[in-house]
């Protein structure tokens, strides 16, 4: 398993190329965000924004920053609620195998097939009655429906891989189910928790349909609605739209890289401890 440094660098180069390929459309988005209207459909297209403009960014920095804050709050709330709901459920389905468990997994699968727009219409009716339209908790609750079924299924799949001996050992030590869950299952499942959190965050970050239906009229609008400042009824300002997307993805991308650091550190730390 020993590899020479030269070979490792070769892998880094391949990794860079692969990442570059995957991110090329993102580069294009950045390119467009700097492009003047008259160059947007140049034929042949310009690979670099040679006569660039900062108009898009000017518009975004003037108008979009509050939306970013809302998106962050909604994303964090969605992550917290999703993990809190789904982790115990995943544990129960994977390790306690209750009667009706498979039926429940099945319902979770079906739940994800309901079209988003129908879900949003249902929520609208419920929220109107409860009076939580245009509130942050309302939007967070709705956004968790994007992630909870997924999260339960993922937790189930990952937690079923936890060796039974580990759990039995905890029981022998006199721990109850709750203690076992809290101090054995959760720490071992750090990887899947991070995976689930990541997706819960990303989904709420890019959600448009719930935001538009349930928070469109309020003071708490996420960044996806902010983009619609540049989509008029007849006309779209594409450099500003793309600039919004760029500005919105930078903080989130930083977060991803940091989370990533944490995961790999956690994994190695866990391996050493074992």
């Amino acid at each position, binding site marked *: 398993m020993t590899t020479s440094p030269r070979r490792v660098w070769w892998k880094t180069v391949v990794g860079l190329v692969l990442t570059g390929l995957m991110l090329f459309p993102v580069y294009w988005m950045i390119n467009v965000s700097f492009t003047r*209207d*008259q*160059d*947007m*459909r*140049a*034929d042949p297209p310009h690979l670099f924004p040679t006569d660039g403009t900062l108009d898009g960014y000017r518009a975004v920095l003037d*108008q979009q920053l509050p939306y970013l804050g809302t998106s962050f709050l909604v994303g964090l709330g969605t992550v917290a609620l999703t993990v809190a709901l789904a982790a115990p459920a995943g544990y129960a389905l994977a390790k306690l195998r209750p*009667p*009706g*468990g*498979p*039926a*429940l997994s*099945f*319902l979770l699968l079906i739940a994800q097939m309901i079209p988003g*727009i129908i879900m949003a*219409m*249902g929520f*609208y*009716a*419920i929220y*109107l*009655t409860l*009076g939580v339209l245009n509130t942050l908790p309302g939007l967070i609750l709705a956004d968790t429906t994007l992630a909870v079924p997924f999260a339960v299924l993922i937790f189930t799949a990952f937690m079923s891989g936890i060796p039974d001996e580990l759990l039995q050992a905890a029981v022998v030590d006199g721990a109850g189910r709750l203690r076992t869950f809290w101090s054995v299952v959760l720490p071992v499942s750090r990887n899947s928790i991070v995976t689930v959190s990541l997706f819960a965050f990303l989904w709420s970050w890019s959600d448009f349909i719930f935001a*538009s*239906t349930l928070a*469109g*009229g309020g003071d708490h609008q996420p960044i996806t*609605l902010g983009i*619609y*400042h*540049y*989509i*008029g*009824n*007849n*006309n*779209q*300002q*594409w450099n500003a739209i793309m600039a919004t997307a760029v500005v919105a993805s930078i903080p989130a991308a930083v977060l991803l890289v940091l989370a990533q650091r944490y995961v790999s550190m956690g994994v190695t730390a866990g391996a050493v401890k074992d």
Partner: protein
Amino acid sequence: MTGLNRRRRLAAVAVIALAAVTAGACSSSSGDSDGGGGGAYLVWDPYPQFADDSDWVALLKKCGTSAGVTVERTGYDTTDLTNKALLAAQQGNSPDVLIVDNPVISTLAEAGALTTTEENKLDVSSMAPNLLGAGQSGGKTYGVPIGANTLALYYNKDLLTAAGVDPASVTDWTSLTSALTKVKAKGKKGITFSAIGTEEGSFQFLPWFWGSGAQLTSLDSPQAVSALTLWKDWLKQGLAPNSVINNTQTTSWQEFASGNFAFAENGTWQLANAEKLGFSYGTIAIPASAGGPAPAPTGGEFVSIPVQKKTDRYATSQKLVTCLTNADNLLTTDTTLSYVAPVTAVQDRQATENPKLKVWVEAVRAAKGRTGDNLGTKYPKISEPLWTAVQAALSGGKSPQEALTAAQASATSK
């Protein structure tokens, strides 16, 4: 094992039964919220591009103050607004004033979501009849136009001069096609438009369709076929790019702005952007097949007053709408939107203040409503087959005749 299976099945049944009970509980407790409440009046518009510090919002606030109420305004994406308005009407949560794209008015009226001018006492007598038509059905009027737009041909003066084409000579389809051919011979591109598979595509095709003498009640007439053949031949001869099949009006404007196209079919709303072009431009009316200007469809939004449970709110809503649509305010609003006003007197003022608007005022006066001719909610059932036919012919699947015959069959079967 079987026992376990039965228990599982029982649990599943229990879950489903509980689901049904909860669903029933949710649907029966319909909302009794007060739709805004107190002195606040809700206004929804399709202008998300206007932020809270814009002139438009300032105008709304001002009208609210003069009516003695506060205005709470929300701007929605235009396609999203139709669904949202229907949903709100279903839940009894409609805004007090709703501004929507004109073809949507007949749909919302059909749904019983809008009040008529008899109920809300709006005065629409000053509005131009050809614009008001889109808001009328069954002899009733459901809203007031706030501004109108339509389509014309923008041209690139520099390119036409280089190709030796006098824009004034473009008066019918033959002269237009020959102008395009001359431009192409110079290595530039002819014309760009939007033939996308949505209402936008029908909107852009209609001037040619109507300009051929065709009627929406008969999509497969020889005239209609000639209009579609015109477009198809342009694509075949390379006078128009293949990308038009997927172009929105914004995309086709970006193509024109690149300076490579001699003509672009686009709307009144691009006037502000036209001033930013890197070349000099002009506008002509879209020519009819046999010459003269073709009737173009009217675009633009209507202000309406949705049905409320508390009918005493209409009086204030009426004051708000009257304020928004009085002559001075129309002038301001339509200038910011780059629209033509719906009132003849205001149109004249616009034309004197900005001579470039003169072409557009004339175009709007000659334009036709899409849902007019008593089509109302039949229009969407005609428009979808129409844009489908345009797409089928342009993407090469079918001949114009085949495509339009299929469209007519589909429109009559619905």
